[in-house]
């Protein structure tokens, strides 16, 4: 059941109507059932995985809080982490590790014939396992008290707006909203509706139309044309942004309508001028999770320069692997880690540079940095989107040595501009006003015009076939 489908619309209308009629206790119970139906619409069998994971975590959370003995607390924390990572590892990485082991041993003259699992990846497994783990870790760190109500805990994990593709909400942020009665207001409702509208627009007008440019190029056979690759990367940069931030916006909007405050996951990432800033703006829920539960426990930047670089690379490598069991994601993670390290290396030089006095020149310089860093990000997307590392190499080769302006090129450029111009205007306004809700708060005339343009674009160009969100595969 996709957010951009009629089934979901009907589902949400029913759920929301019931939600408005119930008190807090029954709202939670109804949301639990609705979330099970929502997740079960993909595959009922995988609901059992969520229940196994949540039962273990709930039990561990209580045991940790009941004990003062550090070893006992640690044991239950380990039980929770190991069980969560085992489920994730088994379903997501088993075949990847086995096939790599096979290749490795074969290269040393030990051919093996391992057994591969023929199973599909449970939707959203990477998201809900991280959320579940955040609970026991925060209880262990005494950052929160465990909940005594199992159903509340299950609802925190399974709450349908953020279940399958995030944002990855930490237990200490979302669980209190489950436990306490929520307040609804008309402003929140309108804000939620706007976020849902803009999220759907991002998905069905921008992302799904750009996919039509990107997919054929990445599915084609080499040799590649540098122009095609470059334009596919530009298109993919906006496709993945709109696909994922569209989903996050819809999730936030649905949450707002129900009185939940789901965190902002994307904050104008392509306005970043350096890798660090990029990760403060892109997939914020994942980057903060990795920072709080991986980078800092590894030592963060407190254990010397070399260890800081090592921690950055390890964090980003694992962040890459989190996206999928493929070397392309590992390379992407390594590339992002490398960018962060290079930034740290260059920081002393950067700080010595004299700052520009002229405002105009400062803006131009800012724009140059934004564009430059956007291209570095696009280069990273090559590995993220490519089907194999050999494709990455061949496309890189085309980007460097094979630029041919074909008859289709100008039309592809036109299409990219056509499908992204409204995003660029909205994001520029959001950046200049420093307010992600600036359109919602805009003058009614501007708002009306914005809606009319969006209706027109969605009516004619909206992809109604209900294409899946990219991050569902993670």
């Amino acid at each position, binding site marked *: 059941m996709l957010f951009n489908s009629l089934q979901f619309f009907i589902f949400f209308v029913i759920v929301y109507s019931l939600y*408005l009629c119930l008190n807090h206790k029954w709202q939670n119970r109804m949301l639990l059932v609705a979330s099970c139906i929502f997740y079960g619409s993909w595959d009922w069998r995988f609901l059992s995985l969520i229940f196994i994971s949540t039962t273990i975590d709930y039990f561990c959370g209580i045991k940790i809080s009941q004990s003062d003995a550090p070893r006992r607390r640690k044991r239950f924390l380990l039980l929770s982490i190991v069980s969560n990572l085992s489920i994730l590892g088994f379903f997501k990485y088993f075949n990847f590790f086995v096939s790599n082991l096979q290749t490795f041993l074969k290269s040393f003259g030990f051919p093996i014939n391992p057994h591969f699992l023929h199973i599909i990846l449970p939707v959203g497994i990477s998201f809900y396992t991280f959320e579940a783990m955040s609970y026991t870790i925060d209880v262990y760190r005494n950052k929160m008290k465990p909940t005594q109500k199992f159903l509340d805990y299950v609802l925190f994990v399974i709450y349908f707006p953020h279940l399958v593709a995030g944002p990855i909400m930490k237990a200490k942020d979302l669980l209190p909203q489950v436990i306490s*009665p929520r307040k609804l207001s*008309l402003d929140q409702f309108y804000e939620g509706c706007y976020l849902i509208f803009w999220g759907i627009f991002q998905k069905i007008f921008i992302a799904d139309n750009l996919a039509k440019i990107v997919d054929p190029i990445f599915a084609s056979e080499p040799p590649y044309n540098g122009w095609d690759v470059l334009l596919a990367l530009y298109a993919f940069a906006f496709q993945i942004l709109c696909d994922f931030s569209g989903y996050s916006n819809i999730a936030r909007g649905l949450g707002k309508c129900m009185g939940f405050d789901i965190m902002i996951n994307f904050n104008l990432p392509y306005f970043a001028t350096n890798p660090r800033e990029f990760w403060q703006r892109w997939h914020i829920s994942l980057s903060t999770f990795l920072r709080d539960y991986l980078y800092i426990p590894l030592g963060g930047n407190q254990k010397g320069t070399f260890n800081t670089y090592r921690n950055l690379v390890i964090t980003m490598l694992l962040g890459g692997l989190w996206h999928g069991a493929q070397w392309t994601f590992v390379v992407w993670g390594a590339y992002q880690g490398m960018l962060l390290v290079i930034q740290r290396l260059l920081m002393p030089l950067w700080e010595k540079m004299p700052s520009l006095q002229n405002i105009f020149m400062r803006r131009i310089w800012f724009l140059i940095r934004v564009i430059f860093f956007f291209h570095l990000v696009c280069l990273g997307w090559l590995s993220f989107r490519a089907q194999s590392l050999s494709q990455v190499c061949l496309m890189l080769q085309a980007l460097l040595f094979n630029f041919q302006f074909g008859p289709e090129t100008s*039309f592809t450029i036109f299409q990219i501009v056509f499908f992204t111009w409204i995003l660029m205007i909205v994001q520029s306004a959001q950046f200049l006003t420093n307010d992600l809700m600036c359109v919602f708060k805009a003058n*009614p005339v501007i*708002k009306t015009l914005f809606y009319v343009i969006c209706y*027109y674009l969605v*009516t*004619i160009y909206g992809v109604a076939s209900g294409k899946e969100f990219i991050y569902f595969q993670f």
Partner: protein
Amino acid sequence: MELPVEKSLFIFNFKRIPWAFLSSVFLFSIIQAALVHTNTFWRFCYFYSTPSGCDSIRLEAQLRTIPPYDPHIKIFLIGSSQTREDFNVEFLNEYFKEMNMVFYNLGISGYGSPMEMFALKDKFLSKSPDVMIYVTFVGSFYPDDQISLSNTLKYYFTPEVVPYVVKHIGIASLMTKDVRAIMIDYFLGEISVLFKYRDQLRQIFFTPVISYLGTEKWTKPMKYAYSKNQHPTYFAAEIIRNKGDRYKISPYTALNEELFSLFTRDVVTKKVKLIVISGPTHPLIKETYKAEMDGLFNHFLLQQASETGFLYLAQKQLPSFDQREFIDFTHLNALGRGKFSLFIRNFLMYLNQKNDIKFYPKGN
């Protein structure tokens, strides 16, 4: 004691009206209504549309640009892509210009089945045609295995066909995912014409850009979808593939027969001169299905013609066409089109002599 349950229904107590949202919906509706009532918009659509890919909007565009009180004698050429490809409308219009007749080629891709014609009947009749020439062929009544409700009614669905579909094909056929999507599209399309023709409009709006950027050469406006004759091996391969069983009796046959009767009855009742033609087909097509199908097809149409009162021209009454005059099994090329159009011209002249069609302006 438990406190009374606090309801959240206050959210419906709208104290602030979302004016921007409401005015945008209103403005969108107004702009859309203005657009679809403008002939320029429909001319633009027709101009930049391609036959085959955009047939449904081409049909709409043609019908919408016909003036409501047209003094000309209007001749609608209806049916499938066979109709679209087989007539040289410029030639016919030029010839009959002095006689105040205007031809409209309203052929649409698909089976040209009576189900489609029945669905489009009211649209045709609303433009008060004087003559309707319906080109059909054996496949329209005895469809091949590719037939389904979704590919027949994708752009032409109307709730009026539902009882007949239920009667002959069964209610389950309406419950498939594709047909459900078609029905939802139909209802949304009734609200927004832009939504209804969105697939074609996407192409139509991009075509001038493609043409301007030089990505593709554009011959405007396009009249025919096909220009290159199929290679002889195509015919041989198709004969082998179909194993002499391409067109056969199916539940769609009874459905089409009933809808054909209703369609013809309504058209004739409206005093429109209806001519049904068994269109020219490639001589080798006979090898793809059993000969008895032709017999059944002709028998049904002859019977209907005598019962309902329309003219029926069987294939044997047409000039003979040889293989060189066809693109494929069912579509004529320029050579064949010329021959067939000449025949139609002569046939209409013959009808005029018989006083079956009056070749002078209405009101005279």
